């Protein structure tokens, strides 16, 4: 295809892409570089490489950011959200894909409307309901709320994965005497497992990164997620940027490693909600 393009155009295109890549990576590179420097060196020149490799900032950030508790809470919150979403959305997706209930268009329409309901329209009563039920600070309950918010989109995605499964497969299993439970568990779920992975990865990412609901419902450092713990460092540690940057790296590194290793499912998840195939 490059036959029609001049070498100048080609070089210019690559240059633009390189500038964009540099823009995306510059702040994160600065984080990595400065996480190894003492505050005075950061202030003197944030662009300079560290004079020595010193990981003391990481130890301080881990303690003061409450990352031990934070990661435990983040795992519980994210795990709850993913398990609840996958369980509910795969069942609903199966029913809606097969048009197994006459009310399926109404259910679809409800979920379509629910996608567009902003968090701010239900956040405040939900907060007071949580307060009354003594659920404030409960990471599992917040995981369920995040699952509920992401349910409509997850149902739609699972439905499209079930639509790709040939009907004959289910029919054959039913003729062989399998009941619905066995058809789902042994025949359909293995086939839609790439869909489960995609939805799980996306909902997991959303839950892990969530800010509005977790910061409202999870107050007190014992209930902080990893990101909220890092947020609590801000202000106190503005006078020690090296430690702040180490805290940022503790959050950035695992997400980037996971993203790079299963990027296919991330990209598929981002795209499947937005591009109509």
């Amino acid at each position, binding site marked *: *295809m*490059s036959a*029609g393009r001049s070498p100048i155009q080609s070089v210019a*295109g690559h240059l*633009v*892409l390189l500038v964009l*890549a540099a823009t*995306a990576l510059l*702040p*994160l590179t600065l984080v990595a570089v400065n996480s190894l420097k003492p505050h005075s060196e950061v*202030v003197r*020149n*944030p*662009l300079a490489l560290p004079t020595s490799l010193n990981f003391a900032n990481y130890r301080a950030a881990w303690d003061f950011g409450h990352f031990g508790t934070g990661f435990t809470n983040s795992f519980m919150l994210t795990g709850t959200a993913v398990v609840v979403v996958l369980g509910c959305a795969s069942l609903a997706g*199966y*029913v*809606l894909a097969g048009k*197994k*209930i006459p009310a399926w268009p109404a*259910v*679809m329409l409800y979920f*379509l*409307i*629910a*996608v567009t*309901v*902003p968090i*701010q*329209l*239900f*956040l*405040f*009563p939900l*907060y007071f*309901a949580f307060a009354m039920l003594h659920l404030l600070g409960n990471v599992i309950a917040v995981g*369920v709320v995040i699952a*509920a918010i992401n*349910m409509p989109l997850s*149902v739609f995605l699972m439905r499209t994965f079930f*639509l790709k499964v040939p009907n004959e497969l289910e029919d054959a299993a039913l003729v062989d005497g399998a009941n619905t439970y066995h058809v789902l568990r042994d025949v359909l779920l293995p086939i839609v497992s790439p869909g489960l992975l995609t939805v799980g990865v996306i909902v997991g990412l959303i839950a*892990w*990164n969530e*800010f*509005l609901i977790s910061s409202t419902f999870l107050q007190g450092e014992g209930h902080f997620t990893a990101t909220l713990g*890092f*947020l609590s460092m*801000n202000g106190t540690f*503005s006078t020690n*940027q090296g430690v*702040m940057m180490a805290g*940022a790296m503790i959050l*950035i590194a695992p*997400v*980037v490693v996971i*993203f*790079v290793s299963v*990027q296919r499912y991330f990209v598929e998840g*981002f*795209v499947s909600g937005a*591009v109509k195939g």
Partner: protein
Amino acid sequence: MSITTELGRTGHQPPIAALYNRHIAPRARGARLKYYILVAPALLLSLSVVLVPAVLTAVAAFTDWNGVAASASWIGLDNFSSIFADGVFWTALANNIRWMVLFLTIPMAIGLGAAMLLLRRPRSRTGYQLIFLIPYVLAAITNALVWLNIMYSPIAGLVGFLRKQGINAPAPLANLQTALYAVAAVDMWHFWGFLTVVYLASLRQTPVDHIEAAHIEGASGMQLFRYVYFPSIRPTLQLMFVMITIFSFLSYDYVKLLTGGGPAHSTEVLSTYAYTFAFSTFQFGKAAAVGLIMSLFGLLPAILYTWLSRRDLQA
């Protein structure tokens, strides 16, 4: 229609006939109960967490409920009239509109441009795509604090460094004129990679024979985009347009984290404005009213979204 009689009706059918009729006759109603049970968890969870509280908010917007008291009185449109009389509300609304204009132009253009460049580079595009998406997969808290401390900080950040070099860079977040754009810049830095990936996926679905035909006809690069790629990705562009419009009226994370709506309300948006009513001044009725207004701004694009997605309903 009671469930037991329906179950009974299924029982009367000879089993073999039932099997043969599976595709012809509508399924016995009793068998459907099972499927209602399967769809129930997703539906009930969404109803109880999203729909019921949303309806409560809509009602509370017309009361003086403070969020704590057991009772509240109906005050009609008082919340709305006092909000409309508040200058901060109009600042916030104007900022949401500025936000929308910024997001509908800058990331849209960069995303589309980058996607077009990547389309012609099948070997390097996976790598670029990966890099462009990294800011998008990081948490708002992480991104905001990184920019706050190492980029925008006039003491330790890049801005501070420029100042030490004698370049008179203003502190982006402390300046009334620049604060909103400085906040939006961080959110756009995090967001544009997503658009690139979505547009690239959409561009790649353009039928190959259309592209080849255009090449044979000797179409220029611009013509190729205008007459082949653009019609093919138009549904995706429309959907992104609608989604960005909706999210522009809901944006919260980066504003709250970077400026909290300040300085002097210069970055206030509707969501931070509502949040302050609910959790700082305990005027829950007013918070609900602002929430309702935000939803109405989202409703118009939402109707458009539903219309665009009608194919899903018919599929």
